[in-house]
């Protein structure tokens, strides 16, 4: 080929590559993943900026985030007669796997407002990777800004096994000489100049896929987290529950268990036992979804976790799981008016 022809083909190749990237960006941001981007909030730390989030890697949903980085519409001042609940939790509560209408916060709103005829707002304060360290550290902000009548705090094994003590997270718990304390962690952004690239779905998906391809022996998504053998979780669990009780008024603790539905004999996990005992001795309302999930599975074969594009029984809650959680929480939040 002549140099002129080579130049022409190279130009065509470049154009073709750009066009292919644009087409993939359009496909991925509508089907796979589209994040609204992140902003630094002075108190909450790095949160989603308001906008649309598309998730197609686990379930499929198009969901919306407000100015506080929370699911749903903007949170205004409380209107007279409004009952307001704040639900704190991790990705199980944030629930980007299900639509806005299916997440348990919305189902609770529907159930309670239908029952009372009064405006009800259940704020979904779930954040991916959040742990009780977040809820403790931000307790004052949440209560003074959002003014909830009652707070639900969702917990699971992952909180105590990995997230709570993870010093890389914005809020974590550190061991001190006389127990534990929460700490915040300024999150410096690695390679800030490259951040805008990650706003593109193509770079985000390619980065995650390539990282996954080269990572050997990592825990596959959806696998049940295992407690470290020999680690005494009791002091951490007891301290956490006591602190939650001290910083929130009558919080309801919601425990989402990891269940292997294929096991004939179901046994609670070590963390589950500890959390149940700690909640009982603290005198807090405690909801454990294990029985509800298993009963539903055994009567109808509906698995409350997992999706058609993942494995049933693994990963986050689907619409069945959210519905079951809402049915358990609604009577507690209504003060017994709903059975």
């Amino acid at each position, binding site marked *: 080929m002549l140099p002129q022809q080579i130049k022409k083909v190279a130009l065509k190749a470049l154009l073709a590559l750009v066009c292919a990237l644009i087409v*993939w960006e359009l496909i991925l941001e509508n089907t*796979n993943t589209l994040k609204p981007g992140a902003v630094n909030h002075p108190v909450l730390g790095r949160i989603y900026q308001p906008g649309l989030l598309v998730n197609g890697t686990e379930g499929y949903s198009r969901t919306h985030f407000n100015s506080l980085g929370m699911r749903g519409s903007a949170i205004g001042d409380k209107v007279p007669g409004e009952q307001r609940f704040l639900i704190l939790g991790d990705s199980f509560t944030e629930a980007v796997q299900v639509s806005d209408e299916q997440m348990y916060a919305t189902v609770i709103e529907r159930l309670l407002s239908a029952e009372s005829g009064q405006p009800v707002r259940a704020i979904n304060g779930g954040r991916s990777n959040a742990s009780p360290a977040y809820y403790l550290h931000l307790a004052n902000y949440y209560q003074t800004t959002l003014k909830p009548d009652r707070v639900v705090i969702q917990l699971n094994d992952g909180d105590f096994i990995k997230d709570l003590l993870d010093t890389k997270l914005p809020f974590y718990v550190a061991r001190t000489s006389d127990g534990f304390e929460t700490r915040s962690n300024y999150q410096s952004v690695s390679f800030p100049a490259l951040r805008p690239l990650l706003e593109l779905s193509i770079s985000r998906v390619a980065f995650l896929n390539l990282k*996954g391809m080269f990572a050997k022996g990592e825990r596959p998504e959806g696998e049940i987290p295992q407690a470290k053998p020999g680690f005494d979780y009791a002091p951490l669990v007891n301290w956490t529950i006591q602190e939650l009780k001290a910083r929130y008024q009558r919080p309801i603790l919601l425990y989402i268990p990891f269940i292997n539905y294929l096991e004939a004999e179901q046994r609670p996990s070590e963390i589950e036992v500890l959390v149940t005992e700690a909640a009982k001795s603290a005198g807090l309302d405690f909801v454990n979804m294990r029985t509800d999930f298993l009963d539903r599975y055994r009567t109808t074969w509906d698995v409350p976790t997992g999706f058609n594009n993942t494995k049933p029984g693994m990963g986050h809650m689907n619409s069945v799981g959210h519905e079951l959680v809402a049915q358990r929480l609604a009577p507690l939040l209504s003060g017994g008016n709903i059975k």
Partner: protein
Amino acid sequence: MIFSSLTFFIFFAIVLLFLRLVKSNDIKKAFLLGASCFFYGYWDYRFLVLMLAVTGANYFFGLRLHNETRPEARRGWLVASIFFNLAILGFFKYYNFFIESANAVLASAGIRFGLLNIILPIGISFIIFEVISYTVDIYRKESPSVDSFFDLALLVAFFPHLIAGPILKPDHFLSQLDREITIRGENLNYGGQMFLVGLVKKVLIADRVAVFVDPVFKNPEVYSAGTLWLAVIAYAIQIYCDFSGYTDMAIGSARCMGFEIPQNFDLPYISRSITEFWRRWHISLSTWLRNYLYIPLGGNRKGKIRQYLNLLIVMLLAGLWHGASWNFVVWGGLHGIALAVHKVFSDYTKGLAAIASPVVAFISWAMTLLFVCTTWVFFRSSDFGTSFLILKKMFLLMEPDGIRWYATDLFLALPMLIAADYAATRWNAGKMLSLKNFRGLFVLFFVLLGLVFLAPQNSAPFIYFQF
């Protein structure tokens, strides 16, 4: 080292670069043999010793068969070569299977034989079939023995087809060794595109669908009848894309180096009869079985009944060739019965086959596909109990309830499969993408990027490697 791994891409790039830079054809052939041995030894260096021993023995048998003129002596050498090759295969692949089966039968008599801790050398069935065809062809005087041991070693070890075929006709490959190995642009273009189609079939279809198939076949008792049907359909897609994807990559990588490997699949799921299916599925195995088993058994030359029986025997052995398990024997037996039934049907209803009605065509296609999919249950299940459980649930002979999992990946796999087969068919007809115009370049980049964006994170080994 599997074709869809980064290690293979690095390995293959080095091979191509070397073949491009070196001038001497002998050095190129020696390097290709060395590279093929490295490719095979990458799994386990001990496999290499066995492969070279098998090659050496068959080189010797080939020379004896070629030089010997007395018919009895030639037959003796042929029997010795076949016995040797089948003994190797029997020991490594079937020893424990037959001992376990014998133990099961003799358990009531209190007799028990010990099992051996044998590693199954990867691709052993393909290697043995390749060398058997080499010696039988010499015996039949269809081709001469090779002059050089290294030529035979390259026929056996040639890395694109070493692990899972296609099983090559020896003279077809050996005649290509007489030509100079050259890296040409048009071969790279065709080979690269075929390789890409194979990669799409393997990574984007077979591996993604496996994420659905594996858990369902592992615990079929908890899934609903509908989900089991979908899993069986998904497995039909998975095994086709896994195996034909491998073949496409084998054809593509061989062509990049200037070698031609024949087609092994020709849209098998469009078949309207089981006979047609076996003309389109794993063509090199069907051809091998016809040439080296069915015809020696008498084929259709000894009457109808004997022909039906021959079909059954061939397919039973084909089933056993796939794996040392009664599940494979049943799978092969069912296909044998179906082939015989179809033969009877064709023999006695000659007029019906000539009816060019779309309704008849559709019913024939649907029945063939239903049969093929149903028999895959035996092929995929770990044991008889699992196979029967799945079949009973599928055909509503027991409680059909269970978890309903309508895997999204299956519904995405279908259009991708149609697109990949369409591309491969066009390219085989010589209508390749031109990488000099925008359209061709766009399709190339779109597919390459698709591999990055849609590939599952854990690539599974090829299903046929175990055979």
